[in-house]
């Protein structure tokens, strides 16, 4: 390449500089400008999370109070850093982050805090101390469900445990959570483990092969849908046993239809709505919560409610088809749909409103 072409490029660049026009951005004073930075939309949960965020600022107590912008990036750290830098330049009131990495966004998030922006990381949280974290209480979920299982079995029986996805930190945490509680019931024996991979197929085949090997199985603690385990019980011609799983629409419907006793733990998709509400509270009052981490306790969805002794006051919703389980909605919808301070419908959460 000769100098000519370099000069030509430079000349073209200068021409474009003079063509640039600074825009005038009119801004209303009242609503808080809040950005939601989401690094991934490849599953039902994240999409529901984004939809309920929008719904919860369109109606209810936050209607008209928040100008919400959702920025999705392509699941890379670099893209989220660049996107956050763009957001920081807009000087919004708050940024909510579902993060691509718990640590690699830290310097960028620090810059946002230094610019006076309220930063709340939710769901996949970050370790940067200036950002608040808002997530489900992952200690409570497996503990209450294992306790429920022990109550159903009268403290005695053989159970299967799902190890989740090999290598995933959350899988180990859930498995340990189940085992820690079951240890207090010496007559409950774990007779088999399988990897459910948070998908129906592996759950069904994992349970099926363990059923073949164990003539007596009295309960199944999955980390996934639970409906795969119920299908495996049906296929093997075995009686229904209590099943633990997570609160997808398909799981609740399967429990209701099969007559199996179920408890479904919830990592509610409305974490985003809660993060928005928290941001507005901080902006209104100028006060941050005392603890850096805020835990959200989504209601359990169950056929058979009980009073937890480990976590007294834990709320349970009894599965009622049409009320909190929806045959006409997608199977991957996460329940419960709505927090109690705003009314989000299943259709709105599923994105099929009207």
């Amino acid at each position, binding site marked *: 390449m000769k100098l000519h072409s370099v000069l030509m490029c430079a000349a073209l*660049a200068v021409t*474009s500089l003079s063509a640039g026009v600074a825009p005038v951005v009119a801004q209303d004073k009242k609503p808080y400008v809040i950005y939601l930075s989401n690094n991934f939309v490849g599953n039902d949960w994240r999409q529901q999370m984004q939809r309920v965020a929008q719904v919860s600022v369109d109606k209810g107590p936050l209607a008209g109070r928040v100008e919400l912008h959702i920025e999705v990036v392509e699941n890379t750290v670099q*893209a989220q850093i*660049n996107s956050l830098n763009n957001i920081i330049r807009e000087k919004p009131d708050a940024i909510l982050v579902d993060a691509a990495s718990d*640590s690699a966004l830290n310097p960028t998030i620090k810059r946002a805090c230094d610019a006076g922006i309220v930063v709340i990381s939710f769901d996949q949280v970050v370790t940067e101390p200036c950002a608040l974290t808002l997530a489900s209480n992952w200690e409570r979920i497996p503990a209450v469900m294992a306790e429920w299982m022990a109550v159903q079995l009268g403290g005695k029986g053989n159970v299967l445990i799902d190890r989740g996805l090999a290598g995933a930190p959350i899988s180990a945490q859930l498995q340990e959570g189940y085992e820690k509680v079951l240890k207090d019931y010496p007559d409950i024996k774990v007779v088999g483990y399988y990897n459910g991979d948070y998908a129906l197929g592996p759950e069904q085949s994992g349970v099926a092969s363990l059923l073949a090997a164990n003539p007596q199985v009295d309960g199944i603690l999955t980390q996934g849908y639970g409906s795969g385990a119920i299908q495996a019980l049906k296929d093997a011609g075995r009686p229904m046993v209590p099943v633990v799983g997570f609160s997808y629409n398909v799981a609740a419907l399967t429990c209701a239809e099969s007559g199996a006793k179920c408890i479904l733990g919830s990592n509610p998709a409305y974490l985003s709505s809660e993060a928005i509400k928290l941001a507005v509270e901080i902006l209104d009052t100028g006060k941050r919560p005392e603890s850096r981490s805020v835990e959200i306790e989504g209601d359990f969805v169950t056929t058979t409610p009980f009073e937890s002794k480990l976590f007294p006051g834990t709320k349970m919703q009894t599965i009622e088809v049409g009320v909190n389980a929806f045959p006409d909605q997608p199977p991957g919808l996460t329940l419960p749909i709505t927090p109690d301070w705003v009314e989000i419908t299943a259709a709105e959460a599923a994105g099929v409103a009207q």
Partner: protein
Amino acid sequence: MSVSVAERPAETEPARHLAWRGWLLDRAPFLVACLMLLVVVAIYGALQKGVFTLDEINLDTAAAMTLILAATGQTIVLIRGGIDLSIGGVISLGTVIAATQFSDDPLTVVMWSALILAIGFAVGALNGLLISALKLQPFLVTLASWSILNGIAMLILPTDGGGVPGWWIGFSYNQILGLASPVWMLIGLIIFWYWFRATRLGITIQATGSNEKSAFLSGVSIARINVVTYGLSGLFAAAAALYLTTQTGAGSPTIGKDYILPSVAAAVIGGVSLFGGRGHLLGTVIGALILTLIGNLVFVLRVSSYWQPVMSGVILLVAVLASSLAEKTARGQEQ
């Protein structure tokens, strides 16, 4: 006599015309890249305040620098007529070594940085050696080493984490004469390039990429060229890793894969030929800036961020078309 006088201007006129056209065709892909950058900058500037300021140049260069460094190595390999996928592994490995070994002591940081760069060069050199010695496809050899390095990075640090000193993170915000350090790095890179491409080594790499057989016949050691070419690519990937840790402040065993294909795309958008022999770092830098600025553009346009990959793809396509048209026209003229 009168005939020759009458003929001379008739001969030189088309010749000059041809030379001018040849010059233009040769640079068409690069000029198209410049034009695309202009369009992106013009739209961005019309929609966003303060685009034509030093701050904006500092920010955008900082955002694009990891990709620019990774793509610099890739450019050298592409000009040689190869491809290097292993940069993904080198970048991941580099960040996890930095995040687990760096301490507050500057001497430790310098030592480990040197070691990371050395590892990058060694890995690349090994790629080059395998490609030459076993006559293997660069694609396959570097795919394998990417996988191996990724695994090693996972063994060192299974999930994102670790840390680097605060002063290291501050690096990209340090300014001299109003320009942040990434801008100075970019200036340094371009100076390096003008020097490098005129060296014997630079010329030989380009010649080998143009026509390996004739390079070999004129006495070039293909093995030596491969070792150096891929070694340099590994070195620049390691530099990208070090720079990346100033942005993330942490190590990530999976982050490198995000730069492999964009590094090729940046080079191709900038007019580097996938068939070797043609290309310039300036083009690659422009390609990397375009890819980075598209993200900003999508942001200020307030459209769905899914438009970013769509726009990147369209720009890549335009670049490839321009390059192929130019080549065809040039070939048509030769005949």
